[in-house]
């Protein structure tokens, strides 16, 4: 696998990391670039198969329509939940400003 050409750039890894809100070191960026390229190579191997006429599937067995009736169930205790939050105020989760912090 590793002798195949690299198909993921450091910039692409950075972009994906930013979307996932991950702060990566340079070493990690390099390592993940290779790993992600390996993943794509694996996908390419599958793409090379002749799959004409084969329905795409999201899971190995076909299961459809798993539904539940519209019946209310119990709620969690608010105080217990908020007690585990980093910050709370007036019965609500207190979070840093949503926008405007970043340049």
């Amino acid at each position, binding site marked *: 696998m590793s002798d195949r050409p690299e198909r993921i750039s450091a910039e692409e890894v950075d972009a994906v990391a930013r979307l996932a809100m991950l702060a990566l070191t340079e070493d990690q960026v390099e390592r993940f670039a290779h790993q992600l390229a390996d993943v794509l190579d694996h996908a390419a191997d599958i793409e090379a198969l002749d799959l004409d006429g084969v329905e795409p599937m999201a899971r190995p067995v076909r299961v459809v329509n798993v539904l539940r009736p*519209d019946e209310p169930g119990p709620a969690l205790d608010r105080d217990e939940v908020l007690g585990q939050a980093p910050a709370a105020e007036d019965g609500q989760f207190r979070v840093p400003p949503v*926008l405007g912090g970043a340049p």
Partner: protein
Amino acid sequence: MSGVDPERWEVVIGLEVHAELSTRTKLFSSATAEFGGEPNTHIDPLTLGLPGSLPVLNARAVELAVRVGLALGCTVQRSVFARKNYFYPDQPKNYQISQYDLPINVDGSLELPSGQVVGIERAHLEEDTGKSTHIGGGGRIHEARHSLVDLNRAGVPLLEIVGRPDLRSADEARAYVAELRAVLVAVGASDGKMEEGSLRVDCNVSVRPRGSAELGTRCEIKNINSLRSLGRAIDAEAARQVALVEAGERVVQETRHWDEDDGRTHTLRSKEEADDYRYFPDPDLVEVDCDPVWVEEVRASLPLLPAARRARLVERSGASRPHAAIVCERNLDDLCLAALDAGADPERVVNHAVHNLADERAVGLDPAAFAALVAMEVDGTLTATQAKTVLAELVAAGGGDPAELAAAHGFEAMDTSELEGLVDGLIAEHPEEWQRYVEGDPRIAGFFVGRVMKATQGKADGRVVTALLDARRG
């Protein structure tokens, strides 16, 4: 109104309407979906995105989505839930479960009261987010010191109805939302309350030189809370874009926030930066594939929809489209049709429904009493003014005998010979005005009728007076 010259510019609008579905519980968990409540009391492990919690789809939400889809003439198809990944504190899982490439409803349309047909691209299921309150900076999102998050609404089922960019003005956009709301309410899918956020509208606006077939760069406007805001936001945004283009600048595709106070839209985030949601099928959920037999059962259970009700009224009564729209919006079409069945004059029935039955209680009016009243008007027993008075009393009481009510007011048909005497007297007293009337001066027509009305305290029938005058003109 907006400062956009309609001769030179065309505004193109496409709306995305999010409707909260009227279920008892959330889309993927059994926490209550009730509106309001003390903050963070409608929560369970799934709402909080706790590890190990798993979503299970609400059967009623699927049914309501299909009801709306069928009412909009959509095709109901096999659908798949996908994760839309982004970070925002009102959504603890860090992804929203929505439908992406395989939505449950596709390719429908909505007919507006004007007759305009607006395309519907899709109507898909997704979960709502929680509610953030921005503290500090006067509540403005950009200047807030911190935010408070209430997750009661997180996970409530939404149907996102994506309209095609077929709308060309603020008026058309408002008419579209009003009609969509009427359909949602009619099929029992949503309460349609914009003020409670049950119905939310995101608005895509672009402008192009009139005659151009190419679409301009669009901006998406959020935070629209009423039909009035929708119209204002469209006009303001179109004016902003036209000013940019006329100044030789270009419109940047972005999401903008409508500010009700300053009447302008403001940049919220630029598209290319943030909108990479990395959708993928949610591995915790299986696809939904509705049984075609069940779909047909749902279709058969739909009520008559607003457009069909308007068409029925137009056909039965000869009402104009705008009048039919008013009557149906007031839910008076059944009353009118029942009055017609009882033999009432269609034109008068519709006229009363449009002009004299704005009272909400009119829905409960006894059609037989309504028809009897209209009959008294037609045969000249009551004048239009008297009929209006009696009608208001019938509405207040839910019914009654119009003849008795008229008698209680002392309303009775004027003896024609009495009227003839009055008319002859007036002609003798006002020879100059009479001469002008005879010569056909339109400004004098009301003079004699007005005098007769005054002399009879409104009891005379205007049509009878006019007929008497015409007979004397020879």
